[in-house]
């Protein structure tokens, strides 16, 4: 994978929404107060637009939000941003550290820059969009989440993936989909190598339709579903094969 460049995304300042939103400056307020305030929002609250300033690599920004609000994070975040998200739409105007969107339930997270390792790990639902590259173990143990990466992904991505869709517009690193159960992996570029029990599969009309829908939702314009290859489980590891007993 090429070196990851985030500066363009970090510089991007989209303040259109900021007039109406409630601003939380992490240079002035502690992170716990931000997360507690977001957790305390009652269903139907009118405070539906939030903006977080100066995250400066903080961990756990906007974890566990369970209301349908929008959160714009202006800068780069550290570990676990948006973890367990259940319904909010989070945009990181920068890059994200390890575990962005870990165990997301629903809603969406968009990272304008790059994401570090295990983006979307164990995610159960919702849409995670990485507009730059994601590093190793993207979508590890995914359980229903949809992940769209505009750039490349690193090695061991979708390891033991169980369900959901991983879409990669660029290339995938070594051992893609190792020990995969049932997730669908769509890669447009080169796959360095496939992991154990992961194979290339036929792209049928229903896959093209599903993929086109994901590309549209992820803002991947100018890219056609037909340019991708599909990978998934050969299902040979579902049950223990007695002929392999000597290997243990």
């Amino acid at each position: 994978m090429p070196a990851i460049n985030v500066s363009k995304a970090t510089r991007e300042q989209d303040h259109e929404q900021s007039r109406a939103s409630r601003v939380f400056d992490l240079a002035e307020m502690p992170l716990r107060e931000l997360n507690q305030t977001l957790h305390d929002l009652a269903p139907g609250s009118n405070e539906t637009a939030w903006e977080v300033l100066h995250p400066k690599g903080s961990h756990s920004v906007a974890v566990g939000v369970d209301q349908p609000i929008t959160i714009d994070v202006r800068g780069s975040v550290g570990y676990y941003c948006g973890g367990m998200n259940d319904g909010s739409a989070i945009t990181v105007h920068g890059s994200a550290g390890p575990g962005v969107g870990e165990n997301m339930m629903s809603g969406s997270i968009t990272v304008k820059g790059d994401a570090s390792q295990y983006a979307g790990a164990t995610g159960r639902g919702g849409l995670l969009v990485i507009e730059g590259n994601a590093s190793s173990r993207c979508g590890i143990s995914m359980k229903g989440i949809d992940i769209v990466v505009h750039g490349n992904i690193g090695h061991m991505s979708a390891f033991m993936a169980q369900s959901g869709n991983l879409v990669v517009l660029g290339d995938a690193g070594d051992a893609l989909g190792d020990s995969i159960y049932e997730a669908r992996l769509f890669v447009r570029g080169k796959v360095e190598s496939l992991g154990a029990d992961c194979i290339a599969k036929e792209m049928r009309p229903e896959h093209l339709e599903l993929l086109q829908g994901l590309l549209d939702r992820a803002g991947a314009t100018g890219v056609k579903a037909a340019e991708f290859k599909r990978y998934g489980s050969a299902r040979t590891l579902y049950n223990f094969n007695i002929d392999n007993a000597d290997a243990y």
Partner: protein
Amino acid sequence: MCGIVGLFLKDKSLEPQLGSMLSEMLISLSDRGPDSAGIAIYGAPSGNEAKITIQSGKPEHDFRNLDAELARAIGTPVNIAVKSTHAVVRTTPDKIDEVRETIQALRPDIRIMGAGDVVEIYKEVGLPEAVVDRFDVRSMTGTHGIGHTRMATESAVTTMGAHPFSTGADQCLVHNGSLSNHNNVRRELIREGMKFETENDTEVAAAYLSSQMAHGKNLGEALEGTLSDLDGFFTFVVGTKNGFGVVRDPIACKPAVMAETDQYVAFGSEYRALTKLPGIDNARVWEPEPATVYFWEH
């Protein structure tokens, strides 16, 4: 866990701020390693001078009159600057081995942190900020430096178990991770004549690189060798007299972020460590690839 940082300056005008920049980077990673902290700073070369950084658990006793006793023993004046539990002994390069042996003979309890033409190494048990304050790291100047905040896993929380580890002149290394074949590699290096101060896995990595470079490899080639000869988890940041290198094992579990501008190359375990650097918003920021060697030299 552990936190590691490194800063290699390209712009000479930043050299007076090296200590303060590196201190901020180190303190920002306190919660990755609150057990102990350490820093190696490469000062500007000052001609015909070499230094040894020494450490003592009872500095009032061990450092008292040491300069006079050393000068008498080797027949040349020796300068000693004491900083808390550490002291920097300055002499001429040709006397460096003799001074080192004489210190160990005169004061058996003194520990050698490192030696070379330009490097100074300070490490102690305690929170990173306390260590930075104790040695007044913020006021130090230099061309490059590396630092470490430690959450111990492989050996005891002691001064000697803290990083950086230095096993060759002006060479030192900080490590996030744990090695699994360090006992074997240590035995091989001992057979080669390398000396070890601790049971620590990281010291083996440092000694491995020193051995490779003593065999004529450059920093990049030596780092390349770690990928086949060392087994375990590692992100290493390494300093040499004029160089700075980074390598991660092929699994690359241990986090790493780098930033480069016209003025510097910086390494941090996390992006948090880089946020106070000048021009960081416009820097090229990237995650170093697994099993890929990065190095820069002045």
